[in-house]
């Protein structure tokens, strides 16, 4: 199967922009939490020299309204749906997983930099969700872990079916006039071109550490970025910030990849490896 192109969670509203979603092989929702969230106070985005910060703070309608109102409309798109699930405890995550049926997969957002983190470890949350659903579970991890390979192995042992790498990394931008943080929350998650080398390293590391399929993301804007992700071991690739500046980015990337044999490239950035059979 050729690598699938997805959107990064929180970087597309398929109900508002279905034409953009249809350029993708699947749609990943914005993170759903148990209760509705308005998100953080504005301003909540800031451009940086080679990226952007966001501190949206998981604005979403809450899981009950999502399942009742949004999910039926998303199904009408006819795309494989990846539901991003968030929360503040293992139970939050597991209870949301339990009420999600008939979707392609669940992505567990274990790494939002803009809310207080759950006290439970990534592996504990994955284990709780594993008991709650038979659906494929992808663990979305941060590159900020001091030993990412260890976290990847732990979530694999806890029952994750795949990894999403990486989330934004916490950063800060100052207003040059006031010398105060631009974002109302202070810090925000850094995305865009700045993130790509960090994302490539995370994918490279986790490919070597586990057998799990990886969705690579972080600074992907061009066909070359997709090639680099796949070479490091990403089975699929997601586009985030590039969707903001160009809603036609997926179509353009796909056109530019038409003549590229991605299967031959998969994992080739690992020394001594020319190819590796991928098994689900």
């Amino acid at each position, binding site marked *: 199967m050729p690598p699938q192109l997805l959107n990064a969670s929180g970087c597309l*509203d398929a109900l508002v922009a279905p034409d953009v979603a249809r350029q993708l092989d699947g749609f990943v929702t914005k993170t759903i939490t148990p209760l509705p969230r308005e*998100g953080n106070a504005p301003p909540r*985005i800031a*451009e940086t020299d080679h990226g952007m910060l*966001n501190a*949206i703070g998981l604005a979403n309608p809450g899981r009950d309204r999502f399942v009742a109102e949004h999910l039926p409309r998303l199904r009408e798109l006819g795309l494989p749906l990846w539901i991003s699930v968030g929360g503040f405890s293992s139970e939050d995550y597991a209870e949301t997983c339990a009420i999600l049926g008939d979707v392609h997969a669940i992505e567990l957002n274990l790494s939002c930099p803009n809310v207080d983190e759950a006290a439970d470890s990534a592996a504990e949350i994955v284990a709780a969700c594993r008991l709650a659903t038979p659906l494929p579970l992808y663990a979305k991890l941060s590159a900020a872990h001091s030993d990412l390979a260890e976290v990847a192995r732990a979530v694999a042992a806890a029952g994750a079916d795949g990894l999403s790498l990486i989330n934004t990394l916490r950063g800060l931008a100052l207003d040059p006039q006031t010398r105060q943080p631009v974002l109302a929350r202070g810090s925000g998650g850094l995305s865009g071109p700045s993130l790509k080398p960090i994302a490539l390293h995370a994918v490279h590391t986790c490919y070597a550490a586990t057998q799990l399929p990886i969705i690579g993301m972080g600074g992907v804007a061009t066909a070359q970025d997709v090639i680099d992700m796949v070479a490091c071991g990403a089975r699929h690739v997601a586009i985030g910030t590039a969707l*903001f*500046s*160009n*809603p036609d980015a997926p179509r353009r990337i796909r056109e530019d990849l038409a003549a590229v044999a991605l299967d031959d490239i998969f994992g080739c950035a690992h020394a001594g490896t020319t190819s590796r059979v991928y098994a689900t």
Partner: protein
Amino acid sequence: MPRREPLNVVGVEPVGPYALLRLVRNGMDPGVPGQFFMLEAPGRVLPRALSLCLAPPSELHFLIDPIGPGTQALARLDRGDVINVFGPLGNGFDLDVERPLLVGGGIGMAPLPYLAEALRFPPAILGFRSELHAQAAVLMPGAEVVIDPVFVTDVLPDGYDILACGPEPMLRALPSGQLAWEAPMACGYGACYGCAVEIDGELKRLCVEGPVLAAAAA
């Protein structure tokens, strides 16, 4: 879905401290006054959201306050440069009003020349922070102009349907009407949730629900 097209730059003209960016329209829909476009800012990661200022035949004009790296990059464009433009986006002004009065503050006057044309040049009041900034009133012939410390709210007549764009304190000081709000935007089409503004106790995505929102009478 609106179009995203590479458009040729006709030129950039100074208007007081502002810059009027003229683009070849190339068949793009200029949209309703108050709608906006995302303009590629050369060398920057994100495009910039700008409402259309004027739509003469075969051109699109945008008024820019070059205060940051993106707006400065746009103001430095030259004849023959090409930038990607995506739009029109958002909800513009409802033109079905009985006694329109256009109210603008500073760079917030940007969408008003196009709006004035659509409404056949109704009365208008523009407020600026200095004589230099007030030179932009040349784009709104016949408008009453006030300069800080006089505010537009000091000279506001009663009995009009207000259509306004300007800084947030000005919009919040107006009694009622259709108000065009502003917030930093990454995408302009509902994807990033960055442009949320608290209005009547609720956070609204300005690019989807705005930028023009109706304000209830106080």
